């Protein structure tokens, strides 16, 4: 029972469903499958929260995940989902355009990929369409024949792309490619981020000339890509190309020998592309994005049980039907088009929870009782700095004013938080702030001009109205206050559990390293952070210690005395 939803106000069936009024315990609880609305199995109970609460809640991790998966796994590319507030769910993934695919890869790779995407990359989002050999042959033939070359899509370098494992690995590491891309290691573990595609066998996929052009500037091939435009020089592009091309699986395409495609194959491939709805997700020149390709799911959570066809042995209940459809769509009828996804049981439960919340009751709910989701932000920074931030794909990882990813810190108040000199140095050469993380800010090889332009914009625009960054000095704190702060740091608040100030003695590495924090952050920010960290960054795991003004000032003095670290400071010494 939830403490915030009292039984005498909400009753039972609002959350647990079931038929309502009964005079015996058994009558109320022993759900029978003949009920039009049986009791909701406990593992899907969060779906009821979603009927009224249209946005994420801290108490509904499963519903939140399910709603994210609906947007991220491609569901809403094919299925229309209208919400009670009149909006339509928009996918957040960005499947690549196939209009210039021949620049990027070979027909052999496309053929093998279509047959089994997860055999190429276990983390691939692309589902398995269970195509026959002939279908895969013809679709690959059509995609290659339909592809048009794009100017600048391939590059021939003066520097040769020689595989130099040591130099390549260190450039791959320094550039923090692993922040976004995963690679399967020898033990079979997938290590790295999931923002970009897995690169375990990328050498089997891409053409060398395309990869070189892509590394030089990915925005040429795909203007909307989430990949940053690193300012690599030609030698770096060559080194990285050689390193990535060496990531191959020699068995991968060994048995794929395709004969030249016939016009009939190409024509048949085009029909198959339309039949399977490929253009629902991918842009394909000459193929229109199909509308209403799959059944609308806006009210799937109220689908009457009489309209469902169950699999043998399946419990005759809507949640089981939905979960079964997600788990093995084609099991329901061999002619169905929905492909096979590779979702974990937990992901299937989450998706089912989110789909069950899309029901009639959520539409008929008086609008005054609904708790609206926070409006979607499409914030874009202005002017030249805005263009630069788009080019660097800052929003793939950082969130600003509600827009962007959540892998890296929210930068909405960055201008109040950091010192300008530090920021310029960091943008040019990001140092390690959180030693335990494998996902870090990459070095983009920015020019002085670019780093300064970005820093100026951040310092001026991203300011918290409640913090005057000049209200407290950056240095000159009394020794007594610094000493008191030190005692509080190591004694009363035991900050060394998570942070490092003295690299010889402290070991905590959950929070950022504070060795040179006095040259990095502003005093006004540290002070406010001590008072209420969640007010500055909602959701941060730094605990709010309800610190007195005196303690917060002393800790600020101590932390501001931790100077050094930047190249500028080093030059001054």
């Amino acid at each position, binding site marked *: 029972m939830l403490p915030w939803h009292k039984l005498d106000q909400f009753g039972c069936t609002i959350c647990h469903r079931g038929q309502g009024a009964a005079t015996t315990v058994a009558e109320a609880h022993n759900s029978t499958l003949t009920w039009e609305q049986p009791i909701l*199995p406990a593992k899907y109970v969060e779906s009821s929260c979603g009927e009224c609460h249209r946005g994420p809640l801290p108490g509904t991790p499963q519903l939140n995940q399910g709603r994210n998966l609906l947007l991220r796994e491609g569901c809403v590319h094919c299925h229309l989902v209208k919400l009670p507030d009149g909006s339509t769910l928009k996918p957040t993934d960005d499947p690549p355009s196939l209009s210039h695919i021949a620049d990027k890869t070979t027909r052999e790779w496309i053929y093998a990929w279509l047959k089994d995407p997860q055999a190429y990359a276990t983390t691939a989002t692309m589902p398995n369409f269970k195509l026959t050999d002939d279908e895969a042959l013809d679709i690959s033939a059509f995609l290659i024949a339909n592809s048009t070359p794009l100017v600048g899509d391939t590059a021939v370098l003066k520097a040769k792309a020689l595989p130099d494992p040591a130099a390549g690995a260190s450039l791959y590491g320094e550039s923090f490619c692993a922040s976004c891309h995963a690679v399967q290691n020898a033990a079979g573990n997938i290590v790295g981020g999931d923002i970009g595609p897995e690169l375990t066998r990328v050498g089997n996929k891409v053409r060398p000339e395309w990869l070189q052009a892509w590394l030089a500037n990915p925005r040429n091939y795909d203007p909307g890509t989430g990949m940053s435009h690193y300012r690599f020089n030609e030698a770096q592009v060559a080194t990285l190309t050689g390193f990535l091309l060496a990531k191959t699986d020699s068995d991968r395409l060994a048995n794929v020998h395709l004969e030249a495609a016939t016009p009939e194959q190409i024509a048949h491939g085009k029909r198959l592309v339309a039949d399977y709805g490929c253009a629902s997700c991918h842009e394909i020149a000459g193929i229109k994005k199909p509308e209403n390709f799959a059944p609308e799911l806006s009210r799937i959570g109220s689908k009457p049980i009489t309209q469902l066809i*169950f699999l043998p042995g399946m419990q005759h209940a809507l949640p089981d039907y939905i979960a079964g459809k997600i788990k093995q769509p084609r099991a329901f009828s061999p002619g169905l088009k929905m492909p096979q996804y590779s979702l974990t*049981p937990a992901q299937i439960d989450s998706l089912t929870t989110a789909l069950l919340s899309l029901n009639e009751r959520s539409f008929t709910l008086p609008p005054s009782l609904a708790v609206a989701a926070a409006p979607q932000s499409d914030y874009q920074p202005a002017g030249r700095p805005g263009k630069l931030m788009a080019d660097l794909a800052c929003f793939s990882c950082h969130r600003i004013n509600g827009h962007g990813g959540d892998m890296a810190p929210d930068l909405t108040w960055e201008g109040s938080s950091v010192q300008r000199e530090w920021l310029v140095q960091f943008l040019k050469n990001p140092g390690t702030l959180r030693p335990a993380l494998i996902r870090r800010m990459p070095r983009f090889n920015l020019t002085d001009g670019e780093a300064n332009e970005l820093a100026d914009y951040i310092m001026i625009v991203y300011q918290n109205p409640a913090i005057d960054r000049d209200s407290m000095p950056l240095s000159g704190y009394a020794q007594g206050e610094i000493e008191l702060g030190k005692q509080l740091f190591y004694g009363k608040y035991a900050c060394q559990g998570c942070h490092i100030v003295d690299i010889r003695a402290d*070991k905590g590495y959950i929070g950022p390293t504070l060795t040179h924090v006095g040259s990095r952050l502003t005093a006004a920010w540290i002070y406010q952070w001590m008072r209420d960290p969640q007010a500055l960054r909602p959701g941060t*795991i730094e605990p709010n210690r309800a610190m007195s003004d005196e303690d917060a000032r002393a800790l600020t003095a101590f932390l501001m005395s931790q100077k050094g670290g930047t190249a500028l400071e080093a030059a001054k010494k």
Partner: protein
Amino acid sequence: MTRSTYGVLALVTAILASSLATSCSRKGPPAPLPKPTAFGAAIIESSGGKQGAQTGAQLPQPLVVQVNDAQGAAVTGALVEFAAAPGVSFDPPNGLTDSSGQLATNVSLGGTAGRYKIIASTLDKASRKIELNVEEIALSYQQSLGRHLNDVYCDRCHNAESTVERVSNYDNLEVKPHPFTDGETLNKMSDADLTAIVSYGGSALGKSALMPAWGNTLSKADVEALISYIRAISDPPSPSAGPVFGKN
């Protein structure tokens, strides 16, 4: 059962299956057990015991058991059957061990929170049943919320195990935190004491200040959820961990 009864049963099943689209069908008769090609002397847990999942949900990892002979060598082709209280399901519910002597099954727990005893059994040469008991934990809604909070706020220090993606902070701490499965210690502490430590920090009960106060960050309901989760997973079980569901 006679041959003709089998025939009738098969006919009925076929009719049921063909009329699926228009009528309700109940689960058919259980599939016959596979015929073992070998017999073991012992059955042991390889992995997948003591996991937690929300009531009715599938455990994140499969339960893997291994059949060994008297010398401790893996036995291929031994029959393993899984059984538990009603409401628990196994996919597959039985099977023969593979070339490394193992059989894996996906376990979905029952609809009531508590601990579920699972029995994995195999037959020895004399057709006697050898049994292995494994316990899995079904978490209530509140306990699942507690687990989610644990993953965000507590696990990095209280769980000594590192993963490739996430390095544990346990070894860095001068005073080691108690893993939440440490029933020996935590079962002796009252809910009120645990609430005080989580809300006001270790210093509140004369323990290490390295445990910070979370009372201004987590709500009262959050702290209750966390403690309910700690109670659910403690080993040995906490007296307030809830019922144990066995086969009968």
